[in-house]
């Protein structure tokens, strides 16, 4: 008995330590990364109260994790715990760069991301995230051409080439569209067309290779690229590829997707056909409601407003609560009635929208539309009264609703109404104030550009305009806004 126990104990001692050390390495790095990220969440939760002194130790912590598990040792593993270690180390390095960027060290962050792209080339998920983040950092640094090159490199990646994720990468599928949009914003239409052409070929090849659940997102990606190229037939053809493999329950949604793409691609007859098909197969807001919405827009393009109004009515009457479709259908219906010259009915729709969805962005637009109508038909007194009433409503809303989106949308609408009332100085102040509250928001940045233009136009406002534009050039997240601020600043200096 004792001898057996002794043998068993000896075997246990011999076996102890024979375990896989990579399992322990993975456990340790995942633990370190998890707690560093938990700390990061706590710091970020403090919002504007978080100081640089809170971020500095975090950056060092992520750097230490990444350094302890170098890519040269781990990144080559094709699968298993060693690859998990490589992924965690690369994630730590990515977070280190993100914190560096947050602390204002875009140049340091950009270099770290560039290093990650090279050292962790075997981890496509990390490379994709790094390219995206690096492009944004390069934009902030004013190195626009390098940022475009980074976006082009991202667009050229294989969307299905990441073995660590299920399904194609949405960022890679989106990249050609973003790249083309950035190029067009800089007036480089030929380069944008070329990028889209290349993406079409590249993604079509991926679609041809795609299997199972990968097919639908790939088909949608190809379709969006072709729609952006103005190739309506090609966009629809790409989506049709995904239909045969769809389960019965998926078909209505895919038909609705086809209708939406046909609308983007400018094929209204196809929109109507696909929408009718989708709406006949499903009764949900997500499918039938969306199908009616795109069908109504197609009818508008086909010059058949009665059919369009009937489809908008169908959305509003079919469900007690049409959900997110409600304000859109009501607004588009009002807009159509306005264009048809039926102002009283249009006004009633605009007012109903404001009453039913007071915080929806379209409710703010509706208020502006009513004022604009009175201005257009030369009813200045009515315009003034409508604008005053709308500003009072918005002021009440801003004082009682702290939702950030409501504060931003309401603030922007208020500034535009002040302009309509002929109070540009107040509008300028409101737009600048909004930008200070939402410095990273593209709508607020566009508002700041407008404020700079207003300041330039008034006597003694050039200094303030220059200051706003300098701030935008330094901090705006959108490259388009930075470039516009730079161009307007140069033009202003030239004029003065």
């Amino acid at each position: 008995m004792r001898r057996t126990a002794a043998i068993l104990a000896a075997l246990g001692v011999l076996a102890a330590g024979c375990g896989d050390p990579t399992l322990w390495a993975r456990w340790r790095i995942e633990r370190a990364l998890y707690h560093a990220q938990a700390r990061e969440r706590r710091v970020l939760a403090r919002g504007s109260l978080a100081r640089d002194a809170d971020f500095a130790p975090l950056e060092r912590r992520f750097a230490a994790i990444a350094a302890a598990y170098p890519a040269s040792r781990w990144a080559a593993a094709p699968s298993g715990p060693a690859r998990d270690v490589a992924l965690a180390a690369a994630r730590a390095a990515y977070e280190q760069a993100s914190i560096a960027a947050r602390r204002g060290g875009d140049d340091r962050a950009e270099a770290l991301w560039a290093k990650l792209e090279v050292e962790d080339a075997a981890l496509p998920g990390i490379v994709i995230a790094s390219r995206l983040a690096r492009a944004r950092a390069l934009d902030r640094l004013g190195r626009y051409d390098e940022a475009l090159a980074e976006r082009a490199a991202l667009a050229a990646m294989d969307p299905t080439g990441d073995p660590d994720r299920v399904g194609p990468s949405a960022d890679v599928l989106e990249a050609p569209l973003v790249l083309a949009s950035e190029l067009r914003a800089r007036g480089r239409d030929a380069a944008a067309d070329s990028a889209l052409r290349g993406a079409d070929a590249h993604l079509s090849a991926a679609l041809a290779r795609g299997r199972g659940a990968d097919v639908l997102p790939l088909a949608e990606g190809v379709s969006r690229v072709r729609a952006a190229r103005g190739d309506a037939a090609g966009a629809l053809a790409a989506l049709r590829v995904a239909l045969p493999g769809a389960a019965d329950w998926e078909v209505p949604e895919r038909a609705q997707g086809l209708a939406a793409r046909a609308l983007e691609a400018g094929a209204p007859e196809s929109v109507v056909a696909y929408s009718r098909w989708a709406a006949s197969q499903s009764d949900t807001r997500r499918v039938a409601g969306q199908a009616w919405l795109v069908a109504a827009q197609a009818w508008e393009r086909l010059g058949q407003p009665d059919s369009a109004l009937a489809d908008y009515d169908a959305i509003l009457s079919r469900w007690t609560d049409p959900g997110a479709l409600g304000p859109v259908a009501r607004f588009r219906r009002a807009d159509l009635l306005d264009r048809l010259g039926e102002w009283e009915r249009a006004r009633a729709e605009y007012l109903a929208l404001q009453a039913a969805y007071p915080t929806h962005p379209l409710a703010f637009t509706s208020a502006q539309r009513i004022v604009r109508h009175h201005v257009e038909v030369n009813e200045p007194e009515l315009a003034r009264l409508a604008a005053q009433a709308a500003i009072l409503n918005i002021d009440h809303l801003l004082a009682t609703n702290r939702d950030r989106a409501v504060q931003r949308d309401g603030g922007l609408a208020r500034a535009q109404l002040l302009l309509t009332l002929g109070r540009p100085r107040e509008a300028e102040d409101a737009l600048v104030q909004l930008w200070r509250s939402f410095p990273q928001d593209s709508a607020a940045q566009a508002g700041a550009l407008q404020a700079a233009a207003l300041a330039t136009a008034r006597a003694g406002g050039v200094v303030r305009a220059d200051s706003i534009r300098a701030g935008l050039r330094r901090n705006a997240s959108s490259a388009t806004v930075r470039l516009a601020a730079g161009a307007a600043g140069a033009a202003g200096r030239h004029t003065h």
Partner: protein
Amino acid sequence: MSFWEQVALGALCFGRAIREGRRLAVWITWLPMLALQALALLALVGAAHPLASWLMAPLLTRVSGDDALRYPQGFHRLPLLAAQSWFLAGALLGPLCVGAAARAYADAAAGRRARAGAALGEALRRWPSLWLAALPTALVAFGVQAGLGQLADVRLSGPTRALLPFLGGAVQLLGQAACAYPPIVVALERRGPFPALARLPATLGRGFVPAAVVLLVLVPTVLPFDGLAPWALADAGRDLPEISAVLAAARALVQAAGALVASGALAYVYLAALAPGSEDA
């Protein structure tokens, strides 16, 4: 004995078992079970360490998937894995500890000096008999858990599904109360497993209700841990997943203490109402 007298007997024996529980010797009788569970918890928490992974990695991968060896998923799965290891440890060592505790409690009740070493030694010699005598209890627990597992895939209404664990718990408690005495008989009367099991029907008349009372009183002791488990996994676990290991260890400790007291209380019920020659037998 009327129903209420049986309820009172169960409560009295439970109270006495708690009072006698102040003796260190009776606690020692459940140390093997606690030690095994502590070892299991340690192995689960450190499953990825080279000292343990040669054994734990293939085992956990098979039982719970590769995620059980990762951080923090391993801690998320710990409550379930700890419950399973408690179940296994209980099936293996539970009868031994029940037998030893019953002997130690009986000695204490008779005014003799309770000697844990002797009680454990005797239980160890009778381990196979104790294990066989406790088999119905283990089978009831296994049957209920397996049944609940099977029902997980059956289409049920929401309220029914919500009530199932309570229903399963009630069935398990009543089943275990019905099969509670054979290991006590083996330990106290030094009988073989089959004569002890043969006495099972005779113990139901006077022993079932007191046993159910004893086991029922213990139910609330683990409820706080079950209530805290979702909090440990979701809220506190977000920043400190290790808290689920602390909870699992505390639960094991409370469970062991409860099982110890239950062993003593059942021994007292047996001696008072079921043993040959007892006042009520």
